[in-house]
Structure formats: structure tokens, C-alpha cells
């Protein structure tokens, strides 16, 4: 009797041992499979290749006839996948599923895995896809592919090979395969995002270079509108310089000889800086040239320019000092449109020229300008400048200011107009001590008669 019990017991024990060994063997084999899958999926980040590897690996591991990896399009909110069709797989179709459409859509939305043993009995089933690819579906597994809480897509396998359909244990295995799949897909998406960002940078840099080269050309055109740096006419010598704060600017000066030994001179500053100011300055330069006439006084010239330039909808303006000098006698007639007070330099020092202050050009079309008269004595130098000089700042935040300008001019009294402009330029540069130039700068020095 005991022998029978012992025999039964050892048979049971042997069976249990065998079962355990088989279970362990299955687990070990599964681990190997997963390890292999992981290795395969990490072999590439290129989309086409990776998707192909995912599908092949899934189908092979699950012993399925076919598989698909269906990706979520986050922008459009739907799903898509590409299927190779035709005998030689030459045609590729892209198939799109609406959000929630079919089993795949359901899995993507709910995040739950699904085993479909009989599609015809499942209300979620949409045969649109199988009709398109011409493959009837007998059974399928579908699992979500999620990485860091983000639904990347859906992995599905169809038509298990052999006689049996898919079991729950197969679904579990596919879920495990979905894990390294998610990692691989996320890497692929990151790689593609990186490529897009790099392309973006390349395009932006190219656009920036195009703008910079156009600005350089604009700078040349703007320079071409200026009448040059120096002039000698009658007993008058003048010298000017202009440095924009950016590539193009709003400061301007102009001079041209009129009949009867008269010389028109003006200097000014368009409100603000950069491209809008540069465009306004350019149009202003052309108008000054066209209105300059020996028959009009400075105020009349200013009024004519102003009427042309004023616009109801714009508040752009330009300060201007405009003068006509008789190069033989030194008589100076001038008007002031909101510009900084000009200075007159001679051996005794620097004095400020009194003007009839009016609004800048471009403010109100009916603005009336007023002429004043004076005379430059032999050796005297009229100095015109823009507020880029007086507003120049140093790293400590101090302004160059009018007082410093006057005393700098005092030191340069003995020089030629070129000495004066160069001297001012050097002093302001030295004062600024590397602090970036924040406003356009222009200076014009006009001397009547040589010193005797």
C-alpha cells in the first residue's frame, strides 16, 4: 500500500518538477526573446528602417502573419501607418484612421490592450483597413505603445500562424514588446525633432545673412545720398562726418552751392533710428535737394519741404537746422526746426547761435519757420551737430553734454574744419570708452575765411 502512495507521490513530484522546469524554460526563453527584440529595436533611429524592424520583430516573435505599427499624429489628432502592398511590396500606402476609429483607434484612446478572437463579433472593428490592404483578418492582438505617459502609437499583430488563435499569454508578450518599442520610437521622434530644429537654425541664419547683406547695400545707397565730406566754395571751407548707430540711420546733412556765391547747408536728425528713420532720411534728402533754390529763404525752403513730408497718420519727424551762407561775405541766414543749438567758434571762445525755435519737419503741415540773420567773421567756424554727440554715454552712465562739447571746441578753435570734426569725433570716442554708440552722430564744421 505504502509503495503505491510513494509511487503516486513521486509521479506527482516528477510531474510538478517537469512543469516547473517547463515554466522556467518558457520564462527564460521569453526573456531571451525580449532581449533580442530590445537589441533589434535599438539598432536604428531612422524612421523607415525602425518601423520595418518593429513590424518584422513583432510578427516573428508573436508567430503572426502580419503586423503594423500605427503612429499617433499629435498635431492632427489622428493615427496613421504605412503599408507595403503589391506582390513585391513596391507600393506604399499611407492609411489614416480617425481618432477612436477601429480597434487601433480604441486602443490609442483608452490605452488598453485588446485581443480580438473574432473581428466580425467586435463592435469596435472597422474593416476599412483590411479591405484596403486586401488581407482578411481572422484574429488580432493590439497593444498601446506608451513612453513617459505619452501615447506614441499602437502595435498590432494579425492572424496567428498555425491552428490556434491568440491567447492571453500572447497578449502579455506583445505588451512586453511594446516597452522597448516605445523607447525606440521616442528616440526616433527626438532625432527627427532635432533634425527639424537644425534645419530651422540653418534657414534662420541664411535669412539673417541675406538681411545683413541687404543692409550693407542700403548703407552704401544712403552714403551715396550724402554730398560728400568736404567742400570749398568762395571763402568757405567745410567738413562733415556722419556715423549711424546701426548699419543705416536717421541723421543727415546736406550742402550744395546755389547761384551768386550762395551755399545751402543743413543738418538734422530723424526721430528714432534704424530702418524706418533711414527711409525717412532718404526721402528727406531728395526733397531738400529738390527744394534748394537761390530764390527762397531758409524758412521758405523748410516750409516747402515740411508741406511735402507731413502726413496725417504718421508722427515721424526730423529736426533740422537749415542755413544759406554767402561765401563771399560770410552773411548767414538760417532757421531752426527743433534742432540742438548751433555753436560758433572763434579765437575768443564758443558762443551759442540764437535761433527762432520752431517744430521739427514732419510735425504739422502748416508750420511757419522764421529766418534769422547773422554774419560769420573771418576765421569763425559754425559748428552743427546732432544730439548723438551730446547724448553719448560712457560706461559710468555720464553724458558727454553741451558743456563738454563747448570746452572741446574751445581747444580746437585754431584748427581747420577738418581738424574740428576729427577732434570732436576723437574726444567723443575717448569719452565713450568703449560704451556702444546708441544714437546716430553727425557733425558739420563750416569756416568762413582763412585766419590771417
Amino acid at each position, binding site marked *: 500500500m505504502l509503495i503505491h502512495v510513494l509511487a503516486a507521490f513521486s509521479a506527482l513530484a516528477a510531474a510538478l518538477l517537469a512543469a516547473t522546469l517547463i515554466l522556467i524554460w518558457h520564462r527564460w526563453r521569453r526573456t531571451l526573446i525580449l532581449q533580442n527584440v530590445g537589441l533589434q529595436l535599438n539598432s536604428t533611429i531612422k524612421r523607415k528602417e525602425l518601423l520595418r524592424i518593429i513590424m518584422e520583430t513583432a510578427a516573428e516573435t508573436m508567430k503572426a502573419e502580419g503586423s503594423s505599427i500605427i503612429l499617433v499624429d499629435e498635431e492632427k489628432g489622428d493615427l496613421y501607418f504605412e503599408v507595403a502592398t503589391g506582390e513585391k511590396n513596391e507600393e506604399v500606402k499611407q492609411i489614416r484612421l480617425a481618432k477612436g476609429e477601429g480597434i487601433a483607434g480604441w486602443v490609442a484612446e483608452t490605452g488598453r490592450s485588446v485581443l480580438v478572437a473574432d473581428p466580425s463579433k467586435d463592435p469596435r472593428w472597422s474593416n476599412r483597413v483590411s479591405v484596403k490592404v486586401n488581407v482578411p483578418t481572422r484574429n488580432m492582438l493590439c497593444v498601446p505603445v506608451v513612453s513617459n505617459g505619452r501615447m506614441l502609437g499602437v502595435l498590432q499583430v494579425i492572424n496567428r500562424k498555425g491552428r490556434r488563435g491568440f491567447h492571453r499569454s500572447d497578449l502579455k508578450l506583445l505588451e512586453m514588446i511594446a516597452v522597448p518599442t516605445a523607447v525606440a520610437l521616442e528616440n526616433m521622434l527626438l532625432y527627427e525633432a532635432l533634425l527639424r530644429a537644425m534645419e530651422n537654425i540653418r534657414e534662420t541664419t541664411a535669412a539673417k545673412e541675406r538681411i545683413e547683406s541687404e543692409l550693407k547695400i542700403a548703407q552704401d545707397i544712403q552714403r551715396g545720398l550724402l554730398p560728400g565730406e568736404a567742400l570749398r566754395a568762395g571763402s568757405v571751407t567745410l567738413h562733415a562726418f556722419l556715423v549711424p548707430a546701426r548699419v543705416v540711420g536717421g541723421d543727415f546733412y546736406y550742402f550744395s552751392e546755389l547761384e551768386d556765391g550762395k551755399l545751402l547747408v543743413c543738418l538734422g*536728425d*530723424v*526721430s*528714432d*533710428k534704424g530702418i524706418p528713420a533711414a527711409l525717412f532720411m532718404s526721402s528727406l534728402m531728395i526733397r531738400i535737394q529738390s527744394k534748394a533754390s537761390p530764390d527762397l529763404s531758409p524758412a521758405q525752403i523748410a516750409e516747402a519741404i515740411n508741406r511735402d513730408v507731413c502726413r*496725417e497718420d504718421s*508722427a*515721424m*519727424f526730423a*529736426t533740422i537746422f537749415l542755413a544759406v551762407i554767402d561765401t563771399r561775405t560770410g552773411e548767414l541766414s538760417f532757421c*531752426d*526746426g*527743433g*534742432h*540742438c*543749438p548751433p555753436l560758433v567758434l572763434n579765437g575768443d571762445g564758443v558762443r551759442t547761435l540764437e535761433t527762432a*525755435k*520752431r*517744430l*521739427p519737419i514732419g*510735425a*504739422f503741415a502748416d508750420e511757419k519757420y522764421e529766418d534769422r540773420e547773422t554774419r560769420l567773421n573771418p576765421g569763425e567756424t559754425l559748428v552743427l551737430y546732432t544730439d548723438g554727440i551730446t547724448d553719448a554715454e560712457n560706461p559710468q552712465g555720464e553724458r558727454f553734454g553741451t558743456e563738454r562739447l563747448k570746452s572741446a571746441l574751445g581747444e580746437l578753435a585754431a584748427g581747420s574744419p577738418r581738424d574740428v570734426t576729427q577732434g570732436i569725433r576723437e574726444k567723443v570716442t575717448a569719452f565713450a570708452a568703449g560704451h556702444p554708440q546708441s544714437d546716430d552722430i553727425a557733425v558739420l564744421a563750416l569756416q568762413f575765411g582763412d585766419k590771417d
Partner: protein
Amino acid sequence: MELTVEKQDGIHIVRIAGRLDGTTSSAAESEIVKLSEAGCRNFLFDLTELEYISSAGLRVMLLAAKKARAAGGKAAVFGMNGTIREIFSISGFLTIFPDLPSREEGLRHMAEPPQT
């Protein structure tokens, strides 16, 4: 830059504080345009806390003066500090913005009809 609008005795008092320059002027400009489109014709500017104004800032002031004039109204300022006053003076803007010594004087000035 801070721009606040107060209504007193039917007059819009526009207070501008801080710096009115290239970076802050477009915000100020939109406010002025909004006020003007809403029918405001008289602009009394409170500049007691205005520290700095650039030519871009002057453009905003000019725009207000233009809108006021076009609508048959007036513009004026009060509370300018020395630096701001000098800028207004050099640029000729004192010819279009009466420089009033106080808020009360400002309101009194605005209540008078504009000279033709």
C-alpha cells in the same frame, strides 16, 4: 514705463512715468490711439514721474497733439522736470504743449476752449 489714464472734470489726464523711449513708445502709442478712437480730444499729460524721453517718445507726444488738433481739442503738459523741459524746449515742442506749473493749472487750461 507706466501709462495710466484718469478722468477728472471730463478731461483725460494721461500720466506717463519712467522712461519713454524706443522700447516703450509703441505701448504708449497704442494707448493714445485707443483713447483718440474712443473719442478723447483733450490730452493733459502728467509728466511728474517721467524720467527720460527720447525722440521715439516725442513721436508719441506729437501723435497726441496731432490727434487733439484734428479733433478740435487741446494738448498740454504739467510736472516736467528740468531735463525733460530742456528736451521739449530744444525740439520746439513747447510751442505745441503749454508747460503748466501744476495739475490745477492744467485742468483750468484744458477747460478753456482752444484758440483758433
